[in-house]
């Protein structure tokens, strides 16, 4: 395990602790800079770093339009839907495992039971998760993650962040996602090429799922940055409160 000065931490594939430290250290550095920079900026209380985020969104949008979106579209156009569904199911199966863990962390044992039941069924009888038998049987996905667990525990979401390639997030959700990646099964692989291929396929799978949402945003939004931010924050709030968010206080 190598660790140098902050921001230069290297991590070896499979060495999840060093990645974790790298992510946390960098996260703290970014956060510290952002907090100092953000004090005087931004009229939106959930998005104090709006100017910085807008710049990052511009970068993201350029890369997405030029590369990621066309690749995801080609994936949808040329890969049969049976295979795409199988790919989604395999990744979702892993997410269900983490959803179950987060269900337990939030004391939602019913939900966690469903999630673990799903994993057992789909892994055992659905060819390692290729087929989503559990959904066919009506066992619903819990859809919990670390960001929601932190929210459930009472951590504030923190400033909104737009990270190129990753998309909209908050300090809380971004931390959750980092933990998810560090503890995810792919991080335990020793083959770096295989590891990055899996991340790549998972990424395109997610992006393909969001293609119709993107075209909806293109039509519906007056300003895409604001539209995406508000939709993301509303959606996360809805998930943290399991579909029953308390009414939001009106802005003065």
């Amino acid at each position, binding site marked *: 395990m190598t660790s140098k000065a902050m921001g230069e931490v290297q991590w070896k594939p499979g060495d999840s602790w060093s990645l974790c430290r790298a992510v946390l250290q960098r996260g703290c550095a970014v956060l510290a800079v952002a907090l100092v920079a953000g004090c005087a900026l931004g009229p939106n209380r959930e998005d104090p770093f709006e100017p910085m985020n807008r710049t990052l969104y511009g970068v993201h949008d350029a890369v997405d339009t030029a590369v990621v979106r066309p690749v995801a579209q080609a994936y949808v156009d040329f890969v049969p839907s049976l295979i795409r569904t199988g790919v989604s199911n395999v990744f979702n199966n892993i997410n269900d495992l983490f959803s179950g863990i987060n269900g337990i962390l939030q004391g939602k044992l019913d939900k966690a039971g469903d999630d673990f039941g799903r994993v057992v069924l789909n892994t055992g009888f659905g060819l390692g998760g290729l087929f989503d038998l559990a959904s066919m049987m009506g066992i619903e996905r819990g859809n919990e993650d670390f960001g929601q667990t932190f929210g459930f525990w009472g951590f504030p979401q923190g400033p909104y962040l737009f990270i190129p390639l990753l998309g909209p997030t908050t300090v809380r959700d971004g931390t959750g996602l980092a933990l998810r990646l560090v503890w995810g099964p792919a991080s335990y692989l020793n083959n770096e090429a295989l590891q990055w291929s899996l991340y790549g396929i998972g990424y395109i799978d997610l992006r393909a799922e969001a293609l119709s949402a993107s075209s909806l945003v*293109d*039509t519906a939004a*007056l300003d895409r940055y*604001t*539209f995406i931010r508000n939709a993301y924050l509303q959606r996360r709030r809805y998930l943290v409160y399991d579909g029953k968010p308390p009414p939001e206080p009106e802005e003065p």
Partner: protein
Amino acid sequence: MRKFDSVARLRAAAVLLLTVALCAAAPAFAQEAPDAIVKRVASDVLATIQADPAIQAGNEARIREVLEVKLLPNFDFARMTALAMGRNWQAATPEQQKRVTDEFRALLVRTYSGALNNYRNETIDYKPLRMNPADTDVTVRTLVVRATGSPIQIDYSMAKQGDTWKCYDVIVAGVSLVTNYRDEFNNQVKAGGVDGLIKTLADRNKGVAAK
């Protein structure tokens, strides 16, 4: 003379019968529950779309026509616009209010017809609605199950208006349409007044891309 009488009497009887029938039917319509309205309208729109060859071939203008006739009368666009504008609604003149409403309505129709063009092989699960007879504001919950991808929850906020119910917000996967536009509308008004908002909406409806 006698013949005319009997025709007149028949006609009167028919009118009477029709009136009685309508009176009997009217309460049935008036009492159509909000979830029943959502179910009736949604299944009607989807069935029409699935049966229309022009729409299946990707004709968005035809989708818009169907929406105009079957779907839109069930929405309260003025209320949606007022909610999205917040305090700026009161500050706008009636003429401005009408223009924002018209443009916002057109934008939502464009968005919705585009979305319908994307998803066609979908089925809708209607969740049972628990409401009291005295309720005047309810949320009807539905789950749209797609051929591929995970199901999407779509809820409709409905308010009672006289004998019927009108939808004033659509909540897609927890994202309220009206709430989502609140910031956008506010920013537009801050930057260019209500007329600025009208212009931006009109530009978007003419196909000018957003930033």
